[in-house]
């Protein structure tokens, strides 16, 4: 099953619709609550990352019998130093973003913690594609 969602820059208020919609399907499938939580948390974090840093993008979610693959692709500044970005507490978020309660530098580390596979393709000045996989079995 395939889902597509759009990401709008700076729209924190509407973020979370993708994870809510995916969550509903996973509940219908009777997926283990632990895996539902991991999926939803990872997807929400990735969406917030794109909302906070990029100029816009898309979310593609594919669910099959073995795994959930989520691709969050954005057009944005890219990540100059992935190693730093993967460190807990490291953040380049603006003061405005931090004021809203985001930008604690936990995004990517939290995604890594909640997924079985994490692939980040990024090009400075072009954009970032985050591919996350949660195995169901």
């Amino acid at each position, binding site marked *: 099953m395939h889902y597509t969602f759009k990401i709008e820059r700076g729209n924190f208020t509407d973020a979370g619709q993708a*994870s809510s919609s995916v969550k*509903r399907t996973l*509940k219908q499938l*009777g997926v283990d609550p632990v895996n539902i939580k991991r999926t939803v948390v990872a997807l929400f974090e990735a969406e917030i990352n794109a909302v906070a840093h990029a100029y816009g993008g898309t979310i593609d979610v594919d669910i099959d019998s073995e795994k959930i693959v989520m691709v969050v692709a954005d057009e944005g500044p890219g990540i100059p130093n992935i190693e730093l970005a993967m460190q807990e507490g490291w953040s380049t978020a603006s003061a405005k973003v931090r004021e809203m309660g985001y930008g604690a530098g936990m995004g990517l580390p939290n995604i890594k913690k909640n997924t079985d596979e994490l692939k980040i393709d990024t090009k400075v000045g072009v954009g970032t594609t985050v591919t996350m996989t949660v195995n169901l079995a």
Partner: protein
Amino acid sequence: MPTGEIYFKHSLRVNGYLCKGCTACMRACPTAAIRIRGGKAVISENKCVDCGECIKACPHKAIYIKQDDFGLIENYRYRVCLVPTTFIGQFDTKYKTKAIYSCLIKLGFTHIYEVEHEVARMKELYNMYMEDHPEIRTFISPYCPAVTRLIQVRFPSLVDNVIHVRAPLELASRVITKKLIDEGARPESIGVFYVTPCAAKIAAVKYPVSGKDTCVAGVINMDFLYNKVMLMLHDSDKNAQPINHTLNSSDVLWSLAGGEAPHFKGAHYAVDGLQNVLNFLERLEDEAIDAPGLVEMRICDQGCVGGVLTTQDRFVARKRLEYRARLFERLERSKIRETPPEDHTLTEQWIKDMEISEIKPRSIYKLNDNYAEAFRMAERLKKIEKALPGVNCSACGAPSCAALAEDIVRGEAKMDTCIFINPHSPASSDAIKSIWGERIKDTDKDQ
């Protein structure tokens, strides 16, 4: 309509004579538990969480809460009226608490005990549980039974966040029973009757999540008792016997929204009102809200004073309770009212009795136990949802197009039940008749 094992039971009933099948209840239900069949509302037991929203929404008073026969109290020599303070909040502050209680005695009770006497012990039980589970970041208060049920059916991943302790009324009934036994009463001669502000508390007594025995002999609806007492207060019997009541002023407000959480350590939230509870749980499940500590939740707006069996405006009742709490406080301070220090020790037996071993997830979303089959059904569901008009007209007897789509994939309804799909097919008109009953005129025959 529901197939398979029924694991929830309820005291909510639909009166078939009064129900007009107007869909008001169906649209108000947070778990889409209601359908119209044969022109009347039908409640699915496994989906219903006893929140009472359907009763509040019904314009015909067709949904009611079955209560125990009041005459049942005559079977006991010691007849205890177990009241939550919400009850005294129903009365104008010109009536003294002891005047209200003396009416209860005249009605046949021998003892009156307020549930809120157990606040101190409940606090200890919560704290013991929280200390035993350092791995849990957010604890959800088990106070409102409808919240616990809602979590079971809609947010199964949060069942372990609920503090596994039974309702305060179970502890209160045990404490007062023990007190009477200590004073020489035989256990079988004691009947504790709880005065309930809502349907959820009845379900918590009769069909508890814990699966354990109750110590409550019967449940009486608050509105029923209010009417009886009000009649007697108007008679203004000056010879009413004052009854001792020794409730602590700070405990009076426990059942109100915000009455519980501030008693605990941690960043507490007090969430009240159905929609607020749903939104909060949704965000909590997504970890979009970080709430370390205790979250207090009440399905009813303003807490128990908003219960469906209360009789007064909830804001008025809240103010009255706050007034009485202040009054108690003044009396305590001036030592006019005698408040003997209460014993708040918890016996090992009570700790054991109050424990819930497991709160089972009971997802209402799961389409099938078999993943492959559930997957096929979910794919079909997505297609059907796209095909349906999305106007949520409820003419199919379901609350929304999404609910109808789910009924169709579960084999409980047919595509033809949607009047937009094929308005002229005989199958469609038969389906509509079976849902809406005689009110649907057969226009073809008239022509």
